[in-house]
């Protein structure tokens, strides 16, 4: 997992003096270099590799074998790109991603926005670990939502696709109310500070000409902050990769595939390995 790419800050938030933060317990400084290009250095002066993508600075403590993933849909010039900012959460970085993949909690945690009782059923959907891309994908996910996006006026059945392209990043594609046929792209980029503490950087690429940038940011912050108090109270704090006390149901197929994929690769930073 040390060779994977991780987000460590917003490109728009870079300063010359820089910001000190942690990546997997290693102190690092993220700053703008003399030319304005981002630099990430460790406490002992080592320069780390950099990718600038999706509004964020990405780095790695190891030697990444492949480039950071891409989101071709997000390159469409008419999309609004939204830097949502950062929220610190006392939870495993893997739990933050796993919660993002879960649909069943919508009516209870995001009541009257992403879900509402009695519309709690998660219909059958497809999950696959795509060997070629080495990514987890869930497709044909459908859910009734009272207000699926800032641009949605009334309740609609929303279709989703979920994608996990790296251990602590997830991309969600969802029906775009103003543009049928296109997908809104909503991402959760997680910076692992320790095994039980993370900085979460949500990011979006949407088709929405009418809503102000501030409203878009607030909508996503509202949603994520509703998750935060839940995430901080999950037990055990680290994500169990083996079945034990937690009993998955049909609605948890994506979570099961994600855990299986993590285990296959030995992506265990923030994971609980001994079944409880």
């Amino acid at each position, binding site marked *: 997992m040390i060779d994977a790419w991780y987000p460590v800050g917003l490109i728009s938030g870079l300063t010359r003096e820089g910001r000190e933060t942690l990546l997997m317990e290693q102190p690092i400084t993220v700053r703008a270099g003399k030319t304005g290009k981002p630099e990430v250095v460790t406490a002992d002066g080592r320069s780390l590799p950099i990718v600038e993508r999706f509004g964020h600075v990405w780095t790695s403590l190891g030697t990444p074998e492949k480039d950071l993933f891409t989101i071709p849909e997000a390159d469409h010039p008419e999309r609004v790109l939204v830097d949502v900012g950062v929220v*610190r959460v006392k939870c495993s970085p893997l739990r933050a991603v796993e919660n993002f993949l879960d649909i069943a909690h919508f009516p209870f945690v995001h009541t009257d926005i992403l879900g509402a009782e009695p519309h709690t059923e998660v219909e059958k959907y497809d999950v696959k670990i795509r060997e070629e891309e080495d990514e987890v994908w869930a497709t044909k996910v459908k859910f009734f939502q009272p207000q699926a996006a800032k641009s949605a006026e009334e309740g609609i059945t929303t279709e989703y696709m979920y994608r996990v392209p790296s251990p602590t990043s997830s991309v969600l594609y969802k029906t775009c109310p103003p543009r049928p046929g296109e997908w809104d792209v909503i991402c959760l980029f997680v910076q692992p500070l320790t095994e039980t503490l993370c900085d979460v950087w949500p990011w979006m690429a949407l088709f929405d000409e009418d809503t102000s940038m*501030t*409203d878009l*940011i*607030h909508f996503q912050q*509202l949603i994520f902050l509703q998750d*935060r108090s839940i995430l901080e109270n999950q037990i055990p704090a680290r994500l169990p990769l083996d079945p034990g006390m937690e009993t998955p149901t049909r609605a948890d197929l994506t979570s099961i595939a994600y855990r299986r994929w993590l285990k296959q690769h030995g992506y265990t930073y923030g994971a609980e390995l001994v079944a409880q």
Partner: protein
Amino acid sequence: MILYDYILSPSCYKVRLMAALIGAPLELRPVDFHPGKEHLGEDLLALNPAGSIPILVDGDLILSESAAMLAYLAGQYAPDWLGEETATSRAMVQQWLAFAHRLTAALGGARLVEMLHGQGDLEALQTAGIAALRELEAALFKRRLDGGTWLVGESITIADVACFPYVALAPDGSISLDPYPSIRLWMRALRGQAGFVEMPGIHRRHELAPDPLTPAEGA
């Protein structure tokens, strides 16, 4: 009436909550506080040189203190929420409005450090926050012994609304509310008020499931 608002700000939520509880009309103008720092931009500094939010604008009146906003909303739409018209009652309401500043500084400060990369001495903020919570717990416990639910008098006042948000969000700053039963009962009563609205981190009150030992009606 326009409220310059940020969805994650407990001080802004105080005003939204107050308006919702008494049915006052409020037009929201979202401010990109994080990550945009819009409150420190030219336009908003012209409105409020302190560079803070919320800001409430009603015609020529500009308010930048949330306690003043609660008093203004209550004065306009629900004068009962200002408390009884006795010297003691008025003074106690003022006392709690001032106390709410301590909650904001300590509990709010800890929350900013823990959640949004704020600066500050976390341990000192948490210590001050816990001291304030213990004081509130003692006061509410005494009120309960005397048969009261609210901070001042027989009914809910702006004092309760002023103190509620930062207390309810204390866990965001890693301060548990488990040791304070009277505070939890008081919060429960407030969350049960008609018109109550939530904010992220403060959930609505769920209806209690039927007691499994009580036979269902008509069974």
